[in-house]
């Protein structure tokens, strides 16, 4: 089943919702066209590329599908309808996502029609396990609910810095949660995975930074839950977010895109690489993007590796690094590595295994504390010189203990401690903590982040926020706090959580 060329073509148009606009009469089309039907020959070759990826549409009419076609059966019931963009200049079919409709639940269609929606990048439908994973952005959520509408406007940079740093970031955590005791964990909807989370996080980072997507020269995606064993997430991210200059004739993006893997530090490891590239003396890139995204996997409870099932989360964070309009300049970094296999997954195994007690002292604590201490020594700093501290968060207890061991106080490490809201988002874990700090930090504050990746190693960085952190905040609606304390969060039971995590 499945045709690779068809998948390529459908995704090329459908992931981004590409279309065309006539430069003469303004007529718009979903899907690219070479000419305008009304203006004819004079428009041939002059059509303007448009897309609806960052747009807001209206759900004009809809119905509930309760008996989907075969490839959609895992969705259960869903709302399907017609979405219009630009006051009805373009209409597309669409499915509302992030909605659980029980078989006994009626839906009042009148109350849904006429509401504003935003496109979401999701898996399209089920396929065989060995097939290419189909994706599409003809999935929508209401613009006034969990995922808010945010326009993407490219802002001309106003200030150049001496040191590289973070110019923008985005965090994406799904709307669904499971609550057990004091801990809440994010649960993907059934059409989400590490790929969709990486794209969503990158999209929010572009919106927040105001950076021109064409100027990003490299994108790294760190994940340990790529649904493919072979095939990068980063290529999808680059194409959907149109990173780098597009060579339209061939449909390729002028960007280097690569996936990285080192358990939960797959993303943080690349921060320094990204920063090195943007200040490389000979041929610097304007910007580089690093994303950490995971749909953290765990065996069912009671099975080997099932202890992880109490802590795994879902989500991602994206950071854009550059030298212009920096919101947090880097001061220094330190990494350490050792051959300490405390968490692993063999090829073809569905779930990772876990070293139990061995994951604590000789693994997590040893590396985090080493990296944190060394970086402070290197820069001649004491914990009291640092305003915020954040480290990898596999559970609520470990990061607090690591922080205390390093000499940090709760007021320094609590703002970045998010594990009890989202669970362990693996590659996204310490980056989401860093984002939570950036969401609230005043200018000229020093932040230390120390990641941990099983296997094992830690990356420590020190950043100092700049004046510009405040001016960009108006473009960050989807803050970590917003996602943690949102009234549209929907809690699911254990069975639904397992089903959603398995995905389509």
């Amino acid at each position: 089943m499945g045709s690779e060329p068809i998948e390529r073509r459908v995704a090329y148009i459908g992931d981004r919702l590409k279309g065309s606009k006539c430069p003469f009469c303004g007529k718009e089309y979903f899907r690219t066209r070479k000419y305008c039907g009304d203006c004819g020959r004079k428009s041939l070759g002059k059509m303007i590329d448009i897309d609806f990826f960052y747009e807001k549409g209206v759900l004009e009419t809809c119905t509930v599908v309760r008996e989907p076609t075969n490839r959609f059966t895992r969705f259960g019931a869903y709302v399907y309808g017609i979405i219009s963009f630009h006051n009805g200049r373009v209409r597309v079919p669409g499915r509302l996502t992030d909605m659980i409709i029980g078989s006994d639940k009626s839906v009042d269609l009148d109350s849904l029609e006429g509401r504003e929606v935003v496109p979401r990048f999701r898996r399209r439908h089920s396929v065989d396990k060995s097939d290419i994973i189909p994706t599409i952005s003809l999935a929508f959520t209401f613009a006034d609910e969990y995922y808010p509408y945010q326009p993407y406007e490219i802002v001309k940079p106003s200030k150049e810095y001496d040191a590289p740093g973070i110019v923008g970031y985005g965090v994406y955590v799904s709307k669904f949660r499971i609550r057990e005791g004091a801990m809440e964990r994010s649960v993907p909807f059934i059409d989400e995975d590490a790929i969709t989370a990486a794209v969503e996080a990158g999209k929010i980072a572009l919106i927040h930074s105001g950076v021109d997507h064409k100027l990003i020269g490299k994108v790294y995606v760190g994940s340990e839950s790529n649904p493919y064993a072979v095939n990068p997430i980063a290529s999808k991210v680059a194409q959907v977010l149109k990173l780098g200059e597009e060579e339209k004739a061939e449909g390729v993006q002028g960007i280097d895109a690569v996936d990285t893997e080192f358990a939960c530090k797959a993303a943080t490891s690349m921060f320094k690489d990204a920063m090195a590239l943007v200040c490389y003396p000979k041929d610097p890139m304007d910007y580089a993007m690093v994303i950490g995204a995971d749909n953290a996997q765990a065996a069912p409870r009671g099975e080997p590796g099932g202890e992880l099932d109490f802590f795994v989360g879902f989500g991602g964070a994206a950071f854009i690094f550059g030298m212009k309009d920096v919101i947090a300049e880097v001061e220094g970094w330190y990494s350490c590595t050792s051959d300490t296999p405390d968490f692993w997954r063999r090829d073809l195994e569905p779930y990772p295994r876990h070293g139990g007690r061995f994951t604590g002292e000789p693994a997590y604590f040893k590396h985090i504390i080493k990296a944190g201490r060394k970086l402070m020594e290197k820069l001649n700093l004491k914990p009291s010189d640092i305003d915020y501290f954040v480290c990898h968060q596999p559970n609520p207890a470990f990061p607090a203990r690591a922080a205390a061991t390093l000499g940090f106080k709760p007021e320094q490490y609590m703002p970045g401690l998010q594990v009890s809201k989202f669970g362990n988002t693996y590659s996204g874990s310490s980056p989401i903590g860093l984002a939570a700090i950036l969401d609230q930090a005043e200018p000229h504050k020093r932040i230390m982040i120390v990641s941990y990746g099983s296997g094992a190693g830690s990356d420590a960085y020190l950043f100092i926020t700049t004046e510009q952190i405040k001016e960009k905040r108006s473009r960050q609606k989807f803050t970590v706090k917003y996602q943690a304390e949102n009234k549209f969060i929907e809690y699911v039971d254990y069975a639904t959580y397992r089903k959603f995590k398995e995905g389509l």
Partner: protein
Amino acid sequence: MKEPVAIIGVGRTRFGEHYELDPEDLIDEAGLMALDSAGLERKDLDACYISDYLLQVTNKIGLEEGFISQLLEMNIPIEKMRSFSSALMNACNAIEAGRYDIVLVGGMEKMTDRWSKIRDNLMLLVDHWSYYAGGTPESIHELLLREYIKEYNIRGDDRQKLMEVLAKISVKNHRNAVFNEYAHFRREIDVKRVFAAREEERRLLGLYDFAPISDGATAIILASLKKAKEYANDAVYIISSSMATDYISYPSRPYRTGFIASKIAMENALKMAKISLHDIKLLEVYDQSTVLEMISLEDLGFVKKGEAWAKLYESFENFSGFYYLDGKQIFVNTNGGLKADGNPLGATGGAQIFEVVKQLKGEAGQRQIKSDGDLTYGCVQEIEGFGTKVYVHILGREKGGK
């Protein structure tokens, strides 16, 4: 039309599930019946136009022309189209052009052989982008209904009446099929049952609002006017054959409360036939859903846009087999329509033609209609996709108006 084309024979199989038969068995049966009723031999045929949508998908076979050639043991020109009406139109074109005199038009479909996957195939055929967005063959009809409700602001009691009208369309079609020995479903249902199915499924439209998935075949024999005289005294004539198209993607169409292709095809058909709409008392519409029967009456011009639900509601208050629209009687889907007669896609149009021929000739037995005044003309609307292609054929006892 330059010259009407005569229908000198009709044939069909029962519609429904034919576990034991291959598609070529079905077309063989329908074809023999058509030849028989025309009093022709195989060797009299100059050409064949046949139709099916999905044999390549349902039965993994193609080159239907070869199957027909082998059945006929002839080497005449044979071409395959998708819908019966498409085959019919192409056959008419060839006869009008003077190329052939006697042509068999046949349609077949074997949908139940792919029971578990057929809905995916149907939806992909209708519009693959709608499929990718989660659309189903049923949900698009519900969207049309929602567009209609929205456009004409039908609320409260009126909404209830509209839903009742749709239920009664289904009830009427089931009743009509009771006397149709070839129909897929020959049992009456009541309004309660239609509503119960909708409620049980928690959907806008339920099981009894949609045509079934059927197997079947149909065939007719066409003759040029000069040949028709040799074979039949009481031929029925095709006095217009018209079609129009629309965008594959329903959401992208400017007109979404019906099918613009229906409207255009009908207007052209009437011009071609040189008759007025009111000369038509017998109508076979493509009721893939109850909504489509209602909407088609508007698109074809029998009732103003946005008024069908109210006019049909009145008609159903004292219903005796026909709608009363604009002061005129109109008999619709007297064979039970797609809803009850069945819908083996490629063959469906043939059953519609079959019915109109039988009614016009007064050979419809227990379901023969009794119209006020003469029953001279009948009209057949067939749709491919979801309004993507609409064919209108007008048939007459006479060779057209003046």
